[in-house]
């Protein structure tokens, strides 16, 4: 039995004529301590999948089990890092995190909560900004707050919905390393949703493509047998990396070909030169 198990999960939005089946027969098993990446595309149902696992949504049919128990509601056992940070704009960095900590440790004293908040703010190097509001922070800093908030709840599983997509390459690389450091230290289970194949290969033990929706299903998995810690520059020379990367990209490009519509209309271009504005 897996740590997290999805069995024949279907999700449909709307009813009758307006029904759209977003997810179609999703089967997924993740073991304790594993890092799995799901590579998906715009509109393929990635966020729906994450929200089913964290308990914000219920499947139309099928089963989702976490540590053997059916997922019926959200729980701080599964911490989520959202793409759009989802911080409360009127609360400071510290207050945003404190709210999550109180939720996860309802019986603890004020002192404990205060210490835990500063510990995680420090971990993401934001102590100087602990009293700032989200709007005073850059995108990268906001996402750091979201990372700290998710981890401060001491979740047993980390769910990440394209957490780094909106960031520039440099910030992205740094945060990837920070997330990996925390993941490997406490050996938590992690599920990362991303549209970046390289991010998936760098971080995960397994990569599973999510085919574009409607009726999105999971594709064949790709195992990443590369020792950790991984080095981005060395990866480039690793034959297994190249082989796996090419196989995944080829698979995704294949999906792209399938998706292309075959237009039959014919348009003719008149043979005309634009006006010469220089002469």
């Amino acid at each position, binding site marked *: 039995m897996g740590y997290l198990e999805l069995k024949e999960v279907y999700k449909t939005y709307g009813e009758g004529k307006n029904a759209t089946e977003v997810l179609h027969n999703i089967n997924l098993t993740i073991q304790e301590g594993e890092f799995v990446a799901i590579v998906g595309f715009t509109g393929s149902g990635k966020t729906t999948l994450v929200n089913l696992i964290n308990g914000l949504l219920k499947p139309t049919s099928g089963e989702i089990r976490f540590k053997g128990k059916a997922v019926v509601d959200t729980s701080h056992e599964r911490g989520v890092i959202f793409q759009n940070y989802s911080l409360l704009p009127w609360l400071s960095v510290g207050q945003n995190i404190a709210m999550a900590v109180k939720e996860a440790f309802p019986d603890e004293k004020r002192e404990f909560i205060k210490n835990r908040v500063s510990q995680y703010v420090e971990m993401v190097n934001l102590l100087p900004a602990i009293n700032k509001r989200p709007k005073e922070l850059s995108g990268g800093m906001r996402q750091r707050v979201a990372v700290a908030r998710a981890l401060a709840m001491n979740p047993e599983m980390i769910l990440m919905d394209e957490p780094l997509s909106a960031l*520039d390459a440099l910030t992205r690389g740094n945060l990837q390393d920070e997330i990996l450091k925390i993941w490997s230290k406490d050996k938590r289970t992690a599920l990362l949703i991303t549209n*970046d194949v390289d991010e998936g290969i760098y971080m995960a033990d397994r990569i599973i493509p999510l085919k574009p929706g409607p009726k999105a299903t999971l594709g064949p998995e790709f195992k990443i047998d590369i020792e950790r810690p991984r080095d981005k520059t060395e990866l480039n020379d690793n034959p297994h990396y190249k082989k796996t990367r090419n196989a995944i990209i080829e698979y995704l490009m294949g999906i792209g070909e399938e998706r292309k519509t075959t237009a039959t209309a014919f348009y003719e*271009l008149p043979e*005309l030169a634009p006006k010469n504005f*220089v002469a």
Partner: protein
Amino acid sequence: MLTQDIKLSETPENGISFPTDRIMLDVKDLKKVYPTPKGDYVVLENLNLQILKEEFVTIIGHSGCGKTTMLSMIAGLNPITGGDIAVLGNPIKGPGPDRGVIFQSPSLMPWMSALQNVMLGVNRVFPHASRSQRKAIAKYYLHKVGLDGAFHKKANELSQGMQQRVGIARAFAIKPKVLLLDEPFGMLDSLTRGELQDILIEIWNKEKITAVMITHDVDEAIFLADRVVMMTSGPRAKIGDVLKIGFERPRARKTVLEHEDYYKYRKHLIDFLEH
């Protein structure tokens, strides 16, 4: 297309110039200064770049190094502090239809249909054509980018990927000599990105125009380019290195990925970006 007789080392940076009759775009000793309350900030200095006719050049560099500043200066949208920019030997005076721009965000008129957005430029550049001819031009390019069913959809009803397709059609439809692209696919997922790269290369190849494209995606830079230009980090950014990509065209992604040089090129660029 770039012929094989041009070596990697033959860049203006190394004091070697290309033959004048082959140069489309010539950037000489370009300088850009932004005044700030703390004094002048020199974004670009001593920037020299020559781009050949029908060449596809990609530009990479760290965010904030001045890539967009340079491209907007070539487009004529940003005044030049020092140096020259010339297209076919003629110094540029502001923006013009000889240089088409595709921006990072599609920058369409949201209340106009896809067709109207493309027609906007076509009407200005083909004043001598009939209305039906002008429409035919716009439709031809919208069809090329795969928007057959969406001619009359308003821009704000289209997905981001579709809007960017309209942006590509709009730029090609005015038949520019040089196409300037500022991270056009940066906001798209990798599947849509791959599709649009293929469309871009197909039209570029057919129209035989010159293309200069900023990207932060190393794979995109290699796959599309004849040469990859690496910019140093600012302030005073300039061209740091140039990598010639020897793959034959047309390029199939699979063949390119499996080519023994591919990961060498990739390593070269990643090394540059990480140091």
